[in-house]
């Protein structure tokens, strides 16, 4: 135990001596948390519509006013021809063309049905899908109103309809920030812990000081603990800073228990630091460790369920993701912070992460050789 005290003293001295790194460790996450949530707004809104109204009837005017009245659409141009409207899609001025054919009103009354044409820029599939769905919703709603009006004239039967009401739990305003902030926080904690621990041991290798330590009777696990504890503490500091920023800037206060949050983070950091150590035992230079870490971080982040839901991934990917520690943190942070999930809700995830912590550290410990 005494040895650890000396190791810790040394590590903390070294960390705090390098002012610029300390500043970076604390400043960068805060900056990112300030900027990223503003950028990561995937809400589909402000859909730009190029309108081609070739009917100019009372019906089309009513429909158009319904569209421009909805929150989702901006009518950016009214063109005479489809070709012209199409060019505004090519130049990205419009996302969607609504074409109302000539004699729309007359044919609707005469033929009982009438087609409308929607052309959507589908390069961004999600946006196209939701945009088209919203537009169809507006049209159907208008159609329903029309039917009741026309119908009620002369006849008594009203159509049967189901009135659907929505309750959006945990995020009633459907705000993307609420969704992204805990996820981004998860990534920041992982990056700080992973990169720092990976680079630290490799640096000792590169400089040669590790040799001097290896020749002392120091125990392997003491040395590794001495390396981990400082970064574990830093990880917690970054997490706390992140929680404060989420609260002050975004007004997000964890619904669930803080104790549970910190408990999970405590175990999770052990796993991430273990991963960093593992990478460091396999690398010779800092540049190499950095690149390897960068590669894994990228895969972890993309496949962590931050941007797209894990449930939407193919089966094999969902199985693969089970070995991505970051995916558990993103999920659990969202569960505790947004939904107020309790200990019994997250227990399976906690156990998995604990297994990761044991496995990764064990592997790193085995692979860290004092002798070669």
């Amino acid at each position, binding site marked *: 135990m005494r040895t650890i005290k000396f190791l810790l003293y040394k590590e903390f001295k070294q960390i705090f001596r390098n002012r610029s790194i300390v500043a970076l460790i604390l400043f960068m996450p805060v900056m990112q948390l300030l900027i990223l949530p503003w950028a990561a707004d995937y809400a589909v809104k402000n859909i730009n519509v190029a309108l081609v109204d070739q009917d100019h009837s009372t019906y089309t005017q009513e429909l158009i006013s319904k569209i421009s009245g909805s929150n989702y659409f901006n009518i950016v141009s009214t063109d005479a021809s489809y070709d012209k409207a199409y060019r505004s899609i090519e130049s990205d001025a419009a996302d969607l063309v609504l074409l109302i054919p000539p004699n729309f009103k007359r044919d609707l009354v005469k033929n009982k049905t009438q087609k409308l044409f929607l052309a959507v820029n589908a390069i961004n599939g999600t946006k196209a899908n939701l945009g088209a769905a919203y537009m169809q919703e507006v049209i159907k709603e208008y159609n329903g109103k029309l039917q009741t009006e026309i119908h009620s004239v002369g006849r008594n039967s009203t159509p049967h309809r*189901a009135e659907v009401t929505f309750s959006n739990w945990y995020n009633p305003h459907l705000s993307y920030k609420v969704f992204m902030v805990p996820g981004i926080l998860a990534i920041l904690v992982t990056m700080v812990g992973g990169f720092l621990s990976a680079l630290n041991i490799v640096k000792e290798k590169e400089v040669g000081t590790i040799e001097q330590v290896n020749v002392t009777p120091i125990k392997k696990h003491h040395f590794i603990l001495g390396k981990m504890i400082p970064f574990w503490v830093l990880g917690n500091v970054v997490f706390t800073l992140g929680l404060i920023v989420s609260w002050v800037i975004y007004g997000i206060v964890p619904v669930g228990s803080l104790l549970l949050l910190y408990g999970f983070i405590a175990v999770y950091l052990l796993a991430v630091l273990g991963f960093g150590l593992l990478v460091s035992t396999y690398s010779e230079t800092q540049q190499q460790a950095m690149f390897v870490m960068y590669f894994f971080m990228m895969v972890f982040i993309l496949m962590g369920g931050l941007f797209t839901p894990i449930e939407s991934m193919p089966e094999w990917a969902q199985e693969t993701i089970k070995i991505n520690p970051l995916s558990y943190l993103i999920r659990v942070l969202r569960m505790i912070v947004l939904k107020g999930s309790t200990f019994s809700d997250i227990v399976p995830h906690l156990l998995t992460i604990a297994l990761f912590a044991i496995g990764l550290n064990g592997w790193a410990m085995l692979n860290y050789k004092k002798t070669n």
Partner: protein
Amino acid sequence: MKRLLVFIKKEFTHVLRDKKTLLILFGMPIVQVLIFGFVLSNEVKNTDLLVIDQAQDRASKEIISKVQASEYFDIASVTFDVQDVEASFKKGKSKAALILPKDFEKNLMTKHVAQVQILADASDPNHATTIENYLTAIIRDYTNSLNASMPYTIIPEVRMLYNPQLKGAPNFVPGVMALILMLVCVMMTAISIVREKEMGTMEVLLVSPFKPIMVIVSKVVPYFILSMLNIVSILLLSVYVLGVPIKGNVLLLFGESALFISTCLSLGIFISIKTQTQQVAMLISLMGMLLPTVLFSGFMFPIENMPFPLRMISNIVPAKWFYIIVKDIMIKGLGFAAVWKESLILMGITVFFLGISIKNFKIRLA
């Protein structure tokens, strides 16, 4: 000229010697393309749904069976109790609940209007909205079938342009190209030049009779070629694995890529001239170049939703313009006429950074 070739050859040996880094440089775009192509999607498929059937009548059962039959949903359980919903949401077991209240059929038939309630775990807003849309559509289909003879129906016919199957690939392939070029050209170039400075070998080169500018040229040539190879591998993957064809002119696409690579190289050179250590060069490339590229190129984060200051910043990020160019040529099949403005901006940025780099370089030598 011959001397230049010798230098370029030396640089190539350096680059090719570090196998681990090389593996990552070539593996990264492939892994990224595959992840984006086969893993990431927003589609709602087999989502676990809770159904609370308080009606227990013919209409409610029919709706439930329609929901069950759709590929979008799996019904996790059918219960009476709203209490179950909260527990299930908190465990993350299901994302939405459909509540069919008492007397659903009776209300629908006699009062013509019946209530349906959808509870969604809206922590992920888009996912929740999509689920709600799909459920609403299924319910509406059912009620419409009751009104079979209902006239005056407007049928919207939807055409998805450029990407009828709504694949993710057309959106991200250009983005991955921009990202990987940033990584190879800016970060690798900057680091490799700064490394020579750090080790002192730069001085040796500079005192040789070789022109200093040529030293830089020979440094960037290998990365230029590496980048082009990366572009080729991404495009091949895109066409043959993801099934996203190149609609426009391939030569034009390569020309524009070469232009963007030049822009990136000029940034890399600029960083290398301004920094003294590899670590600093690495950090600046990472924070100052890669991060903004991910943020502002438009393929991961929608620029149109960003607040005004961020949208302004996005205009000085070269990757944004390259992303637009590639999308226009590759996906929309447009010609040079559509992208000349963006090309001019990239050219301007390149000239600007090369200019200050050369100026700084000369000052240092003087």
